[in-house]
């Protein structure tokens, strides 16, 4: 197992800066999730770590080695592509065994077959070894791709949106399984996704990216609780954080689940009151989403969302002024121009 260190990575395609200067340290054995909207440079960053793209600037270290100039096969990495990229003309066993043959690290045939079998067992596909990729379901293909990635015991595992081709139900299951066996193998893993639920659920730490730049790095809960800027605040959570101008320079943010009827606020907690009219209710089963408008400091109405858990059964009449509030410690403040988080004291 090795750690990975990225310093000032820049990757351009013509005029586009796909990765615009990324510094990142991934600890040995860590499960790091790179999260960002599509087109923000996640795949490019991943391919740069893999050695499929050569960065214009910066340095990549895996363990103690500077691998910046090395080809993929000398980096000790394995990668699972979004498309799984299974070789269609090889059996499942052939696919899983291919890295072993290609890297010539396992010349003995019986040993190779044994390792292929073990890798297949790891993801419970040992009964599919003779099949061709086209005879497999999406979930099975994903497992084959993962088995092929771990068979050569790489130091670093790179996963590019490996779950996005699965249907929703299978995805939750695959997520759990992936996490489980990453723990078991203890392999340093970089997982790319645009799905914040996946990111929150899987990552030891999350890296939020936007336009080729890292916005924030940290444990999922920390990022959720203390977003570093308005982009992170609105990108994480569904729906994202409500933002509201409180002066020319300062924006105030609060999460939908913290905008509650006064009765539901913790007793005695200092809070900011909001009177608003709820214009629409969405009942999602586990929660209720309330939509309405709240005026900012200029008197302009802004769409605001509140999320009530299902155990809050209070009746919310439509188009009637209701008294809501947000506990003071759940308010976030951001600079309007830069979008950056303001230190707690500054805003007050």
């Amino acid at each position: 197992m090795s750690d990975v260190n990225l310093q000032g990575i820049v990757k351009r395609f013509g005029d586009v800066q796909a990765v615009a200067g990324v510094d990142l340290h991934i600890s040995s054995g860590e499960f790091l999730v790179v999260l960002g909207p599509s087109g923000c440079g996640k795949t490019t960053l991943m391919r740069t770590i893999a050695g499929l793209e050569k960065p214009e600037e910066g340095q990549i270290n895996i363990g103690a080695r500077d691998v910046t100039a090395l080809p993929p096969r000398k980096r000790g990495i394995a990668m699972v592509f979004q498309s799984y990229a299974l070789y269609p003309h090889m059996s499942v066993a052939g696919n899983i065994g291919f890295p072993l043959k290609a890297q010539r690290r396992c010349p003995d045939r019986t040993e190779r077959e044994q390792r292929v079998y073990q890798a297949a067992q790891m993801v419970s596909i040992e009964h599919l070894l003779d099949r061709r990729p086209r005879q497999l379901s999406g979930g099975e293909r994903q497992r084959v791709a993962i088995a092929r990635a771990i068979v050569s015991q790489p130091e670093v595992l790179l996963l590019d949106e490996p779950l996005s081709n699965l249907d929703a139900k299978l995805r939750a299951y695959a997520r759990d399984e992936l996490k489980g066996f990453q723990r078991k193998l203890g392999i340093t893993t970089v997982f790319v996704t645009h799905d914040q639920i996946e990111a929150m659920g899987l990552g030891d730490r999350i890296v939020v990216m936007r336009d080729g730049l890292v916005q924030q790095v940290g444990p999922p809960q920390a990022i959720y609780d203390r977003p570093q800027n308005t982009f992170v605040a609105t990108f994480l959570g569904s729906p994202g954080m409500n933002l509201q101008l409180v002066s020319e320079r300062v924006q105030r943010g609060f999460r939908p689940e913290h905008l509650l009827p006064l009765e539901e606020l913790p007793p005695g907690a200092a809070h900011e009151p909001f009177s608003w009219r709820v214009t629409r209710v969405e009942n999602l089963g586990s929660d209720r989403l309330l939509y309405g408008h709240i005026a900012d400091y200029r008197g302009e109405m802004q769409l605001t969302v509140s999320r009530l858990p299902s155990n809050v059964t209070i009746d919310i009449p439509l188009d009637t002024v209701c008294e809501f509030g947000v506990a003071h410690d759940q308010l976030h403040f951001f600079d309007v121009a830069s979008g950056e988080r303001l230190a707690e004291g500054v805003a007050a």
Partner: protein
Amino acid sequence: MNAIMSRWIDDSRLMGIVFLAPATLYIVLLVGLPFVTALLFSVSTATVGDASFNYVGLRNFANVWQTPAFRDALVNTFSFTVIAQICTIILANILAQLLTTPLPQRRSGRIGMWIARMLLILPWATPLSLSVVGWLWMFDSKYSPIDYIFRELALLGPGTVWGPANNLIWLGKPLLAKASIIFVHVWRMTPLATVILMAGLSSIPTDLLDQAEVDGSRYFRTLFQVKLPLIMPIMLISLLFGFIFTFGDLTVVYILTRGGPITHTLTLPMYSFLVGIDGGNLAQGAAVSLFIFPVLLLVAVVLLRTASRAEVR
């Protein structure tokens, strides 16, 4: 008026016939009729001077089969075709690899690649008879530029390895004449095969090649274990195309050697032409040419089956 028109247009049976008619007519008139004529001639005593029909059964076929020249033609046709296809597919694979190699994204590189691809297709785009006349000069017994180069390299001429003659006389010696004809076929077929293979190669998802690279595969393993197996169906199609073109070709042999020296480069189409048109024995000429038919039919069937299977994948 309009109502009648639209009723016609909506009648799918009628429109089907209308749309199929040109192709059917074309096939019947230009392929079917000559074929039937050839069948009829081959069981008759027809000559150029007398096309009247006297049925003689399979006598023409039996006669032809016993002619040594026919045996030569049969062997040559197969060996030329097979050797030419093997050379073509190897050469085309190499060229296709080179021409699909990604270049550094420089302008000059892209223009260079474009020019190289243009030049590549030229042999295919030139009318065959013209280019073969060109090759006739290249192989000229006295003024052959190839011989000139060899002389300059001191390989040919008095006191050299291939000396003492000043010329190799390409088309006058059995082995060289055979080689020359095969060479021109390869030269002719390689562009099409290359283009077909290039299309196949560029249809391989880049993810798959990236995956091979990440898996640790190097150039030749990726070539032989990933790229070639993936383009195998399309390669087979290109091979069969080449087979059909070369097998039935008259132009190259006709212009270069007319089957000579003696019968050393004789092929079935050439022999059929010599017997049927030059010799005036239409019946035997037709019989010779009909030997080509079952071979081409078989190849065509394999070709179509391969093509349809390639599609499914």
